[in-house]
């Protein structure tokens, strides 16, 4: 579904990604892990068209994404959440989600100006759908509150609902449980599992090993801009390179087996 081939990215002289290749299969929950600064978020920025690769190609459902504008990439079916939360703070939760439906609201200027039935029906459906999505992440009771008033964890859930509103085929989640407590984490994990069961393909960046190992069918490990391992969770857990590079040496490797 999503294929990165020999993708490199440098900012000025700094090589942030070098010859990164991997494939995310449709229907999978795919995980990308790696130490701080490894280049994980940069991978998402490349996929969503916010930055262009220095070399290599990214293709989605067989079509190259090179030179495609971010909003067009979203319309092709890729949505994401952000590591540093980017909800629309001054809008209600409901409006945040409805903004995600932008490309799917298809009414004419006349319909809009004269409030014709087609316009009203689509807007009504959008609201109903937005409420559904908010309930899915457990936020519907706050639908009319401003996003700014929500906790960190709730804003992450809101971003998830908003991303789903774009009707993606592939969902990119950048550290969805960062800054959450254990209870919130397992709650969100259940939500993500439910989303995956509905047939969405999910590509998740995460530090929390328990979370990643529990959720993903395949995992790639990024270290200093290179993919050093890729495979099933059990393989990754045992891979000595991964243990050394990502999870630290000796003493810390115990946390891996514990995870």
């Amino acid at each position, binding site marked *: 579904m999503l294929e990165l081939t020999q993708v490199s990215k440098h900012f000025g002289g700094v090589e942030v990604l070098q010859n990164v290749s991997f494939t995310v299969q449709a229907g999978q929950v795919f995980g990308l892990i790696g130490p701080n600064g490894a280049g994980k978020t940069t991978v998402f920025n490349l996929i*969503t068209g*916010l930055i262009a690769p220095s070399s290599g190609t990214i293709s989605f459902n067989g079509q190259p994404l090179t030179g495609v*504008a*971010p*909003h067009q990439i*979203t*319309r092709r079916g890729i*949505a*994401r959440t*952000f590591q540093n939360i*980017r*909800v*629309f*703070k*001054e*809008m209600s939760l409901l*409006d945040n989600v*409805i*903004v*995600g*439906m*932008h*490309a799917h*609201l298809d*009414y004419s200027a006349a319909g*809009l*100006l*004269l*409030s014709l039935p087609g*316009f009203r029906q689509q*807007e009504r459906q959008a609201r109903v759908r937005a409420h559904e999505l908010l309930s899915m992440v457990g936020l519907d009771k706050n639908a009319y509150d*401003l996003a*700014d*008033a929500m906790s960190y964890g709730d804003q992450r859930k809101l971003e998830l609902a*908003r991303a789903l*509103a*774009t009707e993606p085929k592939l969902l990119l989640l950048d550290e969805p449980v960062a800054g959450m407590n254990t209870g919130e984490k397992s709650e969100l994990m259940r939500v993500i599992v439910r989303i995956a069961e509905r047939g969405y393909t999910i590509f998740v960046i995460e530090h929390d090993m328990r979370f990643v190992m529990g959720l993903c069918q395949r995992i790639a490990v990024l270290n200093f801009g290179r993919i050093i391992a890729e495979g099933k969770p059990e393989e990754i857990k045992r891979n000595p390179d991964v243990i050394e590079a990502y999870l630290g040496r000796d003493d810390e490797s115990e946390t891996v087996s514990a995870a």
Partner: protein
Amino acid sequence: MEGFDNFWAVYSNLVLSIGINALLAISIWFTLSCGLLAMANAAFMGIGAYTAALLTMKAGASFTVALLGGIGAPLAVALIIGMPTLRLSGVYLAMATLGFGEVVRILILNAERWTGGALGLNGIPQLTQWWHVLASLVAVLLVLWRLRRSRVGRAFEAIKEDDVAAALMGIGVMSHKLLAFALGAGIAGLAGALNAHLTFFIGPAEYGFERGIDILTMAVLGGTGGLAGPVVGALVITLLPEFLRSFRNYRLMINGVILVLIVLFLPKGIWDPSRVRQWLKRSRRGMPDNTAGVR
């Protein structure tokens, strides 16, 4: 009735100025609501005014055609200059659009054969009736009201808050910015066309930096949170000099002070529905709202 006639005889110009200024305040509302500080609206007003005046004076066009020309010309110019300039952000966009305004002013000054240069255009037929202004204002407010409740209005707001996140929601950021800029230009042009056919005379000095600051002050004072904002802003800024007649020479300075005070203390303007709603909520709960502090 006689009382009204007397009132109208004295104040009709003032009332119509309020209406025209409200249109101008709305014209910059569009770009402000996308988070863009574009300062070209005085120039767009000028383009609209000269286009419409030339149409009625030199081409013998009807007032309707003149008004349409007054809307269309600045709108077309906005589409052309918007492409390169709207990619700029913040202060760079403000500078580029101010520069554009200066270019327009100098072009008007130098195209003497058409525009009368520094002497301006004299003897414009006084075709603007009170109801032209009222109908224009109502129509524009209606369009705005509909826009705000649609995907377009939400897209503007999303772009204002975070244009990267907006793009990743599938919103064409550039096309919406261009739309906002062009609609604002058209409305500023309409205001210019109506004004030109009200005042008999127009000159290039009317569409310079001072006018730009005036427009901005009205919009910022009123706030962009609600539809009534620009109208309230226009009302205050138009009436203020009447009440402070002795301070007339300090008009610009007073505008500047108002801008500073509003930005410092009421960044959302005096008309801010969400703040009013919050006040109501708070007084109903009877306790201070401290959720904002907990982040």
